[in-house]
């Protein structure tokens, strides 16, 4: 709010209900407008306009209505949606879902402000994604390489370690040699999860490389809708004004979509699939499409949304619509998790559509794409062999199929599995992949160029690969 502007405050409160305040006698107020509520004690709270009809406005209070006396309450409308200061002041800070400090520090300052609503990158000014973001996770870096400017979701289910994986990626990810930052937006987290995230990312935050926005499950749903927008607004300015490569991790987008459904119901909108609003697709796109690279501007915004599929249903509206917008997916599997393997990435259901723009000679390593393709093909064959063995018995398998079957546990334990605090360098991850592949007869490694195979010693030690 500009200092010159003296806001007219409204004092006729018709009703307080849950987190909602109904104010009457208002004029010129619009949806999503930000409001400041002053209590008789002088305490200030904030809200967002959910609904306006005639001279009535329904405002959802971000801090809740507990302890409010309608008689002494004043409400001022900003005349615009929430704006936040932007800049490097966010780095190293831990805030709630609307940007208020949770770390005991002062408010976050910035030289300029920007509306959190933001807007998607203009398609004609987009620079195609390129160059990798290395996560230090073998399964991601080797098989579904994350590319700067990409949107790559993690599809998970309740009980799987998606939060641990998201936090590990937030703690380890880098763009070697270039300025890199992480914005982590947690939505609908339990207090235990919020504590875990804060503890696990404290070091990176203290190093001034990370901004943490934590919206907990007991926070108002309207704040949950603001959280990813705030995260993206902060990231855009760090990237395109500050020249950084920024990774935005948003978890859990299903929780976000449920908040959207709740607000939509409160607004009396006609529900669509599973009561989500009909505009869920365009709403998700308005978030995901804010990532990318811009022609003539430094930096990039890469988005890694995490979403839990209710009952593991990949056709649920949230993963379904997300899948239409994003450029691939990383799928976590319950069966692999049951084997005690972390991270339980199902490589055959996972895909990074932009991997070829971020991996290979001059980007990661000359043999990367060939190794990834061969390993994926070998996994597909191992799965077929496993299914055949279930039907006809292992003795009915060909010798080659038996080799594939024997390779699979090696893949799980020697390639996929890694400690939750261990960063694997890309070379190390690729060597793990090679070791698994070299358990197969050379005749089965047809996707690897002969020169690459010849460059390897029989024990799998690296040869001369570019």
């Amino acid at each position, binding site marked *: *709010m*500009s*200092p010159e*502007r*003296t*806001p*007219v*405050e*409204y*004092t*006729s409160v018709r009703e307080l209900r849950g987190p909602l305040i109904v104010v*009457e*006698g208002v004029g010129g107020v619009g949806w999503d407008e930000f409001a400041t509520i*002053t209590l008789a004690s002088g305490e200030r709270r904030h809200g967002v306009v959910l609904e306006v009809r005639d001279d009535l406005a329904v405002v959802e209070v971000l801090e809740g209505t507990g302890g409010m006396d309608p008689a002494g309450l*004043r409400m001022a409308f900003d005349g615009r949606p929430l704006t936040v*200061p932007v*800049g490097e*002041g966010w780095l*190293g*800070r831990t805030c709630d879902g609307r940007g208020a*400090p949770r*770390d*005991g*520090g*002062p*408010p976050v*300052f*910035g*030289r300029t*402000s920007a509306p959190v609503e933001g807007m998607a990158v203009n398609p004609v000014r987009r620079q195609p994604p390129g160059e990798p973001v290395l996560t230090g996770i073998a399964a991601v870096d080797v098989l579904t390489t994350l590319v700067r400017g990409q949107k790559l979701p993690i599809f998970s289910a309740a009980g799987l370690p998606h939060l641990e994986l998201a936090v590990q990626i937030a703690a380890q990810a880098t763009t070697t040699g270039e300025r890199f930052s992480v914005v982590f937006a947690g939505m609908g987290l339990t207090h235990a999860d919020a504590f875990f995230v804060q503890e696990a990312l*404290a*070091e990176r*935050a*203290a*190093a001034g490389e990370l901004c943490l926005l934590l919206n907990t499950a007991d926070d108002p749903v309207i704040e949950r809708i603001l959280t990813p927008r705030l995260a993206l607004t902060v990231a855009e300015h760090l990237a395109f004004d500050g020249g950084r490569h920024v990774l935005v991790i948003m978890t859990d987008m299903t929780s976000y979509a449920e908040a959207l459904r709740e607000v939509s119901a409160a607004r009396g909108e006609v529900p669509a699939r599973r009561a989500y609003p009909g505009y869920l697709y365009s709403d998700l796109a308005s978030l995901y499409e804010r990532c990318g690279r811009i022609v003539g501007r430094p930096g990039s915004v890469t988005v890694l949304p995490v979403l839990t599929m209710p009952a593991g249903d990949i056709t649920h509206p949230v993963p379904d619509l997300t899948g239409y917008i994003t450029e691939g997916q990383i799928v976590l599997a319950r069966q692999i998790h049951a084997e005690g393997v972390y991270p339980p990435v199902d490589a055959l259901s996972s895909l990074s559509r932009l991997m070829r723009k971020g991996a290979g000679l001059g980007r990661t390593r000359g043999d990367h794409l060939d190794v990834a393709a061969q390993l994926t093909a070998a996994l597909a064959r191992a799965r077929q062999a496993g299914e055949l063995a279930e039907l006809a018995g292992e003795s009915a398998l060909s010798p080659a199929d038996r080799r594939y079957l024997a390779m699979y546990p090696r893949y799980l334990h020697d390639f996929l599995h890694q400690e939750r605090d261990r960063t694997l360098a890309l070379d190390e991850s690729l060597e793990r992949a090679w070791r698994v592949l070299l358990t197969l007869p050379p005749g089965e490694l047809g996707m690897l160029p002969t020169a690459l195979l010849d460059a390897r010693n029989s024990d799998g030690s690296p040869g001369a690969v570019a």
Partner: protein
Amino acid sequence: MTPAQARAVDPADPLAPVRTALLRAAEEEAHQLVAAARRDAEAVVAAARSRSTAVLREARRQGEQEGGRATADAMARTRHAVRAGVLRAQAEAYDELRRTVLAQVRLCRREPGYPAAREQLSDQARLLLGPEAVVIEHPRGGVIGTAGGRTVDLSLDALALRVFDGAGAGIESLWRT
């Protein structure tokens, strides 16, 4: 017993050759057993040495790893504590500045120009709310105007805080040199 030995047998002690042969065989067997036992002992000692070396190496590696981890944890905790301390200090400086601004602005009431400023604020309140607005002086300076469910806060506190909140990054100069 060969025929020659049989022939050389002393009739007084016909079992002597048997005894001699048994003794020799027993001695040979004892030598073999001792040699085997010695070999076994050497192997056991060598294996124990090798195992102890491996255990020692593993213990050293684990110790280094745990030491490294403990050092890293301690450093991370220290960095975190330092960062928390810095943020706390910044928040205190921010709050102190806010208190000072409010205290100073309230002193304006003693200025000779205050009555004129209060009138200007009253006019502004009526401009915003209409001529029917009721305007009263705020106990800490400035005015409050109200009219039919609407109010404008033109108290000195509110005016000062609006300017303070709009100061943005300028406030960071408190802790940035």
